[in-house]
């Protein structure tokens, strides 16, 4: 056999959207059996590139050579027929159908051409799931009843139900717990051992180091590095390639201040706040200028606590006070009025009005400031929104663009600008950098720290321990809905927090599920 031709060679791929050149002559070479990592900031063109590869976008220019032949990927079906499967970050499963029905959606095994052979589909689905290390998922269950991690597995089973030679995984680890990630890596290892190539997209550099063979880095629609060795290239170099500058540190410094001398009054006081079945009585005092972080695994109750403080969930006990006044429980409006603001975990689904402009997204919580008896002063509104977005260096510097055209980091800034404009006093941040790339993260951290320095109190939830440790002044470690440790961030390190978060507990189904093999069906905390 001659030197093996590359499985896939994409050259000079160009793709423009109105106003944006998403891809500007990108090359990507993938060999059979390798894990090829695709890195880049949000808006660098990763999504567009994989959509071109999946047949979902047609490139304006450039060629795609697949196993030695030039091909045109006219549709997702065409790509699938060639053996290219894509697992998108936002899972595309039908919740009302069973696992097996989802896996074989569109290519159901049939009898007489149209009768679905449900039993065959279930049997082969069971085999696929077993191969993926999740034999416990019943192929007959409704996908809507599964946890996010299990849905991810189903999505993967669907990809493998085709004859695949290349699988694209877009941030597959984002919704997974650490042990689930290990399983994912094992699956990736099995696949590549069989000669399947994996194009792996992740923001987590350590993952890329663990499983990646080669790395292609995109920046501003161009490939700035093609096929770097994943294990040997220094992290600093990768980050430099992505951000176009050397990142010395990503976290802004904490202000030096003597708390003993100037104990300011807490702005937010939470006492015994409870939601039965979700988290135990929770206490917190938050002072202006302070950032408090909640660290914990998925299911530890951290987001639930945040949303209950905000009134988006109704507590079963306890109270929230702002400036000494008790908030009406379960009322978002009362919370907003008192000066709370939430940047929710699901930015697109919970935070933004995706059809609207940046201005309207920013002004939505302060409309009364620009209106007289309900009548809007749109000039004033536009100027205020512009001032707020400029304050946060939101890009592009034009608040009349639709918010959906912004990158993840800038969309988050739009949410922050909303609360900044409102003059909010307590900012609740739920996974503020989810889906935000390394370079933009550093900028967001700076923004958050500056807002705190200006007197805002910040309550931060993040599943990334370094983020909590780097950004927060004080850290509350959560496990199974309970605060197990409270300490200044400077007294903690990553290992210590992970130990606390993972410490085995005698009565913890949440953790048992996480650490000791197959999930038990009873008491599954995933919603």
């Amino acid at each position: 056999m001659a030197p093996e031709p590359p499985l896939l060679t994409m050259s000079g791929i160009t793709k423009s959207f109105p106003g944006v050149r998403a891809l500007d002559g990108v090359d990507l070479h993938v060999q059979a059996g390798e894990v090829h990592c695709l890195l880049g900031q949000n808006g660098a063109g990763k999504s567009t590139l994989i959509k071109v590869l999946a047949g979902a976008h047609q490139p304006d220019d450039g060629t795609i050579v697949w196993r030695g032949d030039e091909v045109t990927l006219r549709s997702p079906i065409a790509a699938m027929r060639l053996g290219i499967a894509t697992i998108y970050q936002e899972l595309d499963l039908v919740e009302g159908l069973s696992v097996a029905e989802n896996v074989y959606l569109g290519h159901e095994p049939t009898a007489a051409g149209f009768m679905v052979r449900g039993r065959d589909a279930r049997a082969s689905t069971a085999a696929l799931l077993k191969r993926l290390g999740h034999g416990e998922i019943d192929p007959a269950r409704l996908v809507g009843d599964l946890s996010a991690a299990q849905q991810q597995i189903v999505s993967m089973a669907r990809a493998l139900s085709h004859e695949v030679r290349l699988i694209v995984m877009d941030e597959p680890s984002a919704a997974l717990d650490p042990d689930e990630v290990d399983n994912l890596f094992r699956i990736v290892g099995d696949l590549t051992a069989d000669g399947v190539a994996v194009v792996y997209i992740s923001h987590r550099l350590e993952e890329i180091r663990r499983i990646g063979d080669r790395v292609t880095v995109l920046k501003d629609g161009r490939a700035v590095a093609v096929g770097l060795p994943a294990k040997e290239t220094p992290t600093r170099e990768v980050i430099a390639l992505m951000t176009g500058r050397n990142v010395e540190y990503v976290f802004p410094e904490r202000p030096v201040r003597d708390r003993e001398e100037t104990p300011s009054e807490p702005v937010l006081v939470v006492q015994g706040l409870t939601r039965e079945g979700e988290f135990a009585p929770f206490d917190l005092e938050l002072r202006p200028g302070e950032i408090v972080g909640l660290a914990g695994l998925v299911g530890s109750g951290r987001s639930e606590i945040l949303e209950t403080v905000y009134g988006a969930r109704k507590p079963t006990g306890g109270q929230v006070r702002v400036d000494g006044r008790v908030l009406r429980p379960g009322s978002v409006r009362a919370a907003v009025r008192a000066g709370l603001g939430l940047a929710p975990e699901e930015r697109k689904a919970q935070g933004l009005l995706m059809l609207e402009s940046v201005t309207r997204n920013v002004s939505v919580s302060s409309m009364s400031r620009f209106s007289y008896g309900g009548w809007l002063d749109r000039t004033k509104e536009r100027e205020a929104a512009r001032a707020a977005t400029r304050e946060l260096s939101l890009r592009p510097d034009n608040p009349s663009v639709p918010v959906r055209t912004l990158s993840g980091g800038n969309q988050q800034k739009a949410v922050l600008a909303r609360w900044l404009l409102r003059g909010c006093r307590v900012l609740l941040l739920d996974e503020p950098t989810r889906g935000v790339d390394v370079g933009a993260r550093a900028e967001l951290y700076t923004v958050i720290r500056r807002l705190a320095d200006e007197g805002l109190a910040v309550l931060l939830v993040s599943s990334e321990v370094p983020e909590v440790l780097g950004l927060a002044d004080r850290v509350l470690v959560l496990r199974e809905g309970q605060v197990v440790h409270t300490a200044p961030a400077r007294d903690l390190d990553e290992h210590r927090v992970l130990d606390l978060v993972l410490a085995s507990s005698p009565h913890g189904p949440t953790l048992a599920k996480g650490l000791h093999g197959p999930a038990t069906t009873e008491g599954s905390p995933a919603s």
Partner: protein
Amino acid sequence: MTQPASPARPITEKSPPTDGDKRPWWSFVVRADVRTLSLLGVLAALVVIGGITEPEAFLDTDNLQLILTQASVIGVVTVGMTFVIISGGIDLSVGAIVALASVWATTVATQDYGFAGILFTAVMVGLGCGLVNGLLIAYGGMVPFIATLAMLASGRGLALEITDGKTQMVTVDGVLKLGERDSYVLGIPPLVMVFAAVTVVGWLLLNRTTFGRRSVAVGGNAEAARLAGIDVRRQRLYLYLLSGLCCGIAAFLLIVLAGSGQNTNGNLYELDAIAAAIIGGTLLSGGRGTITGSVLGVLIFTTITNIFALNNLETAVQQIAKGAIIVAAVLVQRRTATT
């Protein structure tokens, strides 16, 4: 609302405007989107067709006045419907509310109170039905489709109960006079002026007020609106009240137009109003829509009906043409939406 000693100062400082901030007043002509222009084009084409096929009958002043008058009743209903659809809801009960309001306002007892009695009753019945819809949907957690379907059934039933199936003639002179030629101002029937006023108020409400913004926000992403501090439930209640109010006004217009109240009034208005809003570019899933588009949709439908009637074409053909227009309009919008 008060924020004592707010340390994070709200943004107030002015920033220099950049390009695109200041537009000349006439720029809306240029900015008129493809959809509005294409709707205007369709309307113009219809006028040309009408003028060619029945040059005398169609272009007659009487006929043009008739078209506008007929458009007024359904037009007012459509303005309310547009708001409801933009907010992600639907109101299937508009026809039934119009019927109920028109018969309640024309009972012998109501007519005793004269002009004001009829107008007041029509509006109050509309608001009352809207209140029930709104409470069931916003606070009762019912799906709009179901709640307003129930209102449709019971509204029609109540209207039949009131009239016993009989036509209730209007005897109040003031009301009858409004429909007569003597009341036209500069050739414009008062009904059309009401329609125009409702359109203008609706446009301002949608585009220039917090109410409009909130409606769009609720329709675009109710969860995000809630977490941004908007009272989504109250907004929904107001929206169905608005739709009910529009139905009440429409019922009054219909009473003036027909000189009577009937329980069969407003038949299939829900479908016509939804169709007009849809071809006008309102997203059925909520979050986007315009009053201009809806009103153009109404005018297109009414003109078609008129042309078909003048040419002695069957109602069946008319219905098919309407269906085709809905499909064509949505296809055109799909195309323009992607550019």
